[in-house]
C-alpha cells in the first residue's frame, strides 16, 4: 500500500497571545519571534499513517508544498520513520489558496507515482480553511472521507473511523482515496528517537520546483483564482459587566429577560 501524507509547516500557533502581531501591509501574521512548526493535524495524519503501516504494511511518503524551511518538517517526519520525503518549493505567492495548494500537491502525487491512500490534516493551524483535502481529492479524481481518526484494513479494503457530532461512523472504502485526519487520543504524534533524528539528516529528500511538475505552474504561483485576503485583524474582545437590579427575585428575572432581549435585538 502506497501512502502519501501531506504536511504543512506553519507559524507556531502556540505563540503567546500578546506576542501575536499582524503585518497588515502583507496581510499575514508577523513572524516575530515565533518558530515554524509542523501543523498539528498533519502530524496526527502522519501518526495515523505510521500506525496503519505497523498493522498493514506499506510505504509512507511525506509531501509538502512550501518554502525551503519546510524541509525541517519533512526531516522530522523522516525521523518519525516515514520512508521518503518530497518538497515542492513554493516560489510564488507566500500564502497560496487551498485550490492552488491542492493542484500543486496533486501534480506532485502524480509524479510520485501509484498511490492508494492520501492523508492530510483536517485543517491547518494558521489559516484554518480546511479545504485542501477535499480539493485534492477532486484534483486527483478520487473519493474523500473527512474527519477520520483511525484507519484499518480488511480483505474488502479500508475501514475508516470518522468523527461526527453524534459519535463515529465507520466507512468502508476502496483505495485510492483521500482521507482528512482529525486528532484523537490515539494519534498523538510520537516523539522520534534521537538516533532516527540524526539519521533523518542523512536521508535523501526530493526537491521539486513547480516547473518540475506537470501542472499550470503560473496559476499556482499567482494563487488568486480562488479567494483574496482583503483585510486581516486581531479580534478585539470587549467585556462589559452589568448587574441586574430588582426588588424581588421575580422582578430581577424579569429585568434580566428584558435586558437579554434588548442586547440581542441590538446585535
Amino acid at each position, binding site marked *: 500500500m502506497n501512502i502519501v501524507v501531506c504536511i504543512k509547516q506553519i507559524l507556531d500557533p502556540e505563540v503567546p497571545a*500578546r506576542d501575536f502581531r499582524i503585518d497588515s501591509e502583507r496581510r499575514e501574521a508577523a513572524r516575530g519571534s515565533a518558530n515554524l512548526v509542523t501543523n498539528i493535524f498533519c502530524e496526527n495524519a502522519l501518526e495515523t499513517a505510521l500506525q496503519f503501516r505497523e498493522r498493514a504494511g506499506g510505504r509512507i511518503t511525506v509531501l509538502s508544498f512550501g518554502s525551503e524551511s519546510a524541509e525541517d518538517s519533512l526531516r522530522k517526519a523522516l525521523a518519525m520513520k516515514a520512508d521518503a520525503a518530497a518538497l515542492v518549493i513554493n516560489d510564488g505567492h507566500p500564502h497560496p489558496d487551498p485550490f492552488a495548494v491542492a493542484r500543486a500537491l496533486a501534480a506532485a502525487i502524480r509524479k510520485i507515482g501509484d498511490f492508494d491512500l492520501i492523508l492530510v490534516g483536517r485543517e491547518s493551524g494558521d489559516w484554518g480553511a480546511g479545504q485542501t483535502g477535499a480539493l485534492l481529492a477532486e484534483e486527483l479524481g478520487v473519493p474523500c472521507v473527512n474527519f477520520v481518526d483511525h484507519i484499518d484494513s480488511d480483505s474488502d479494503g479500508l475501514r475508516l473511523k470518522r468523527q461526527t457530532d453524534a459519535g463515529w461512523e465507520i466507512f468502508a472504502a476502496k483505495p485510492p482515496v483521500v482521507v482528512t485526519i482529525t486528532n484523537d487520543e490515539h494519534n498523538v504524534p510520537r516523539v522520534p528517537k534521537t*538516533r532516527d533524528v540524526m539519521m533523518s539528516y542523512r536521508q535523501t529528500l526530493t526537491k521539486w520546483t513547480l516547473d518540475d511538475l506537470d501542472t499550470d505552474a503560473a496559476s499556482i504561483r499567482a494563487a488568486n483564482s480562488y479567494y483574496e485576503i482583503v483585510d486581516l485583524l486581531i479580534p478585539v474582545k470587549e467585556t462589559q459587566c452589568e448587574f441586574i437590579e430588582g426588588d424581588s427575585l421575580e422582578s430581577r428575572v424579569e429585568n434580566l429577560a428584558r435586558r437579554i432581549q434588548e442586547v440581542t435585538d441590538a446585535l
Partner: protein
Amino acid sequence: MNDSQATREVFWNITQVWAMYALLVPTLVIAGFGFYRRVRVWKRGLPLDRTDRPIERIRKLITHALAQRRTTRDTSAGIFHTLIYTGFIILTLATTVVFIHQDFGLPIMRGKFYLYFQSFLVDVFGALTIVGILMAAFRRSIQRPKKLVYTDEAAMILAVIFLIAVTGFLVEGWRIAATSDPWGHWSPFGYLIARASGPLMSDETLKQSHAAVWWTHAVLVFGFIAWAPYTKMAHVAFSPFNIYTASLAPVGASLRHIDFDKAETLGVNSLAAFTWKDLADFDACTECGRCTNFCPANTVGKSLSPRDIILDLQLFMRNSERGIQNGNSALRTPHSAFNSPIIGTVEATSPDALWACTTCGACMEACPVFIEQMPKIVDMRRFLVMEEADFPDTMQEAVTSIESRGHPFRGTSLGRMDWAEGLNVQTIDQADDAEVLLWVGCGGALVERNTRVTRATAQLLEKAGVSFAVLGREEKCTGDPARRIGNEFLFQNLAKENSDKLNRHGVKKIITACPHCFNTFRNEYPQFGGNFEVYHHSQYLARLVDEGKLKPEKKSEKKVTFHDPCYLGRHNDEYDAPRQLVKIASRSNPIEMKQSREQSFCCGGGGGMSFIEEPPDKRVNGERARQILETDAERVAVGCPFCMTMLEDGINARKGERDVRVMDVAELLWESVSADVRG
C-alpha cells in the same frame, strides 16, 4: 628486669610453624584471585582517565580514606567504623612488626616500643575493635535502620572478626599466664585474661589451649583474608581505590559527554556501555545505604533507590561473569550477559525509578566512597529517551517545546521580555558595550512568579550602576532540562547554538538567577566553546553590597530560612553568598533547617521533574515544605526559579493560617535597598 630488654618470643609454644607459612600461600592466591576477578571485569568497561592531578587525588585519599571525613558524618556508624577501622590498622601494623622482627631478623619488637606500642596500644585497640564490632552487631540486629542491607554475609563478617579479636586476646592472655610474662601487665586486657585463667587452668592446659586457639586464630585470619575480596569487605581495598579515582569535577559537571559521531549506542542499557569506573563503583559499594537514605525521591516513598541500583547492578555484573542473568541459570556466555539489557531487568532500574530522580546529587554527596550514582541514572535515561523515545508524556512535551520553541514551558502566555515592562532594560543589540549579560532564563521570563525575581534582579543591577543587557527574544533554553531528562542530542545542539550566539555578541560575563543555567554555563558550556565568567545572581549581588554599590537601608523583622538550590550548593559548592544576602536583608541570621547546605533536601524540581505530575502522596516538594514548616520561619528564601514554584506549591498546600512566603534572595535584597517595597 630492665624494660629495655622487654620482648616476647614470637612462636612460643607453636610447633610446625612451617604449616602457617604454607597456609599463607593458598590464602594469598585465593584473595589475589578475588581482587583480580573484580579488576578483570572493570577492564571490560569503556576507557576513562582518572589518574590525572595526582596531588589532588592523594589529598582526597587522605581526607576521605584515611581520615574518613564522610564516613564519620553519621555519628553511630562513624563511631563503630572508626573503632574497627583503627583497630584493623593498628593490629595490621602490629603483625607487620612481628613479621619484620621475626622474618627479616630485624629485632625491632623490643624495649619501650614493644611495651608502649606492641603491648599496650595494640591491646587497647584490640579491645576497642571488639567494642566497635559489638556496636555494629547491636545496630544490625537490634536497631535495624532501614537503610542497611541485611545479608547473611554481613552478619558472618561481624562474627568472624569478632572471633578473630577474641581468640587474639585468649592467645595473648594464656601466653602471659603460662610464661609468667614479666611485662604482661603492659597488655591490660590480655593480662586480665591471664589473671582470670591462672587459677582455673593448669600450666599444661594453658599450653594446650594456647596452641589450639593460636591455630584457630591463624586459620580464622587466613580464612578471612582469603574470603574478604569475595565479600563487601573488599571495600578495604576498593574504597581507597575508588576515592583515589573519583571524579575531581564538581557534581554539576559529572555527566558524561557523548560524541555523537562515534557513539554506537546512545545512553546506557548494558554493562558494556559503562566506563570501567562505573563498573568499579558497583564493586566499591559498602552497602551503607546513605545514598538511599538521603534520596528525596526515596524519602517520599518512590521506588528510586540509588543503593539498590548500585547493588543490583553489582549482582548483575557478577552474575554476568558466570553467564547467569536475572537470577535464573539460563546460561549465556559472559559476553552476551555483559551486553544484555539492564534497564528494567533488575528491580532497581525500572523506568519508574529512573524517572523519579531529581538529579539533586544528594546520593553522591552522602557516599563515603564517592560512588557516582546520579550520572548512571542519567545514562540510563539517555537510552530510554534517545534510543527508545520512551519517557513520560509530560516530559516529552517539555522536550518538544524546547525543541520547537526554545523553552520547556508549553502554553505559557508570557513572552521573553514581558517581565521588563516599565523598566529601562536594554537588549544586547541596543547596548552592545554592556559589561555583563543578565541571562533571564526560561523560568525567569515565562513563569509569572519568577518574572518578579527577574525584575528585582534587574532593578538591583540598575541601582548599583551595573552596565548590563539581556538577550531578549534571542534567548533560548540552555539545555539543562533536556540534558537531565536524557536528550543529550538536543542539549548539545542548544549548547553549541547558545555558545556561538553569546560569543558573537562578545559576552564575557553572565549573571543568572537560575542555578541550572548557572551550572550549565559554568560546567558544561566550556566543552562547546562557551567560556564565560558566570555568576549566580546571589554571588554578584553580594559583591555589589560588599563594594558599597548597593546600600541596604532597612532590615526585615521576619524570620527567614534559606533553602539551598541543589545546582548552586551541592553541584557548585556555593552556600554562603545567598545566606549573606539573607543576613543583609533581615535582622537575624537565617534559620538553618535540619537538612541544609551539603545535605540540603531537593525541592523536587530538578532533572526535569518539574515537568512531571507527582502522585499527591509522594511529592518531594511536600516533604521539603514539611521540613520548612518545622522551623518557625516566616520567609523561605530561595535562589532558583524551580525551587520557587515547587516550594510555593508545597508550602501553600500545607501552611494553613501561617504567614509563610517564598521569596528569592534578590527580592529580599530589593526590599531592603529600595524605598518601594513592592518594586
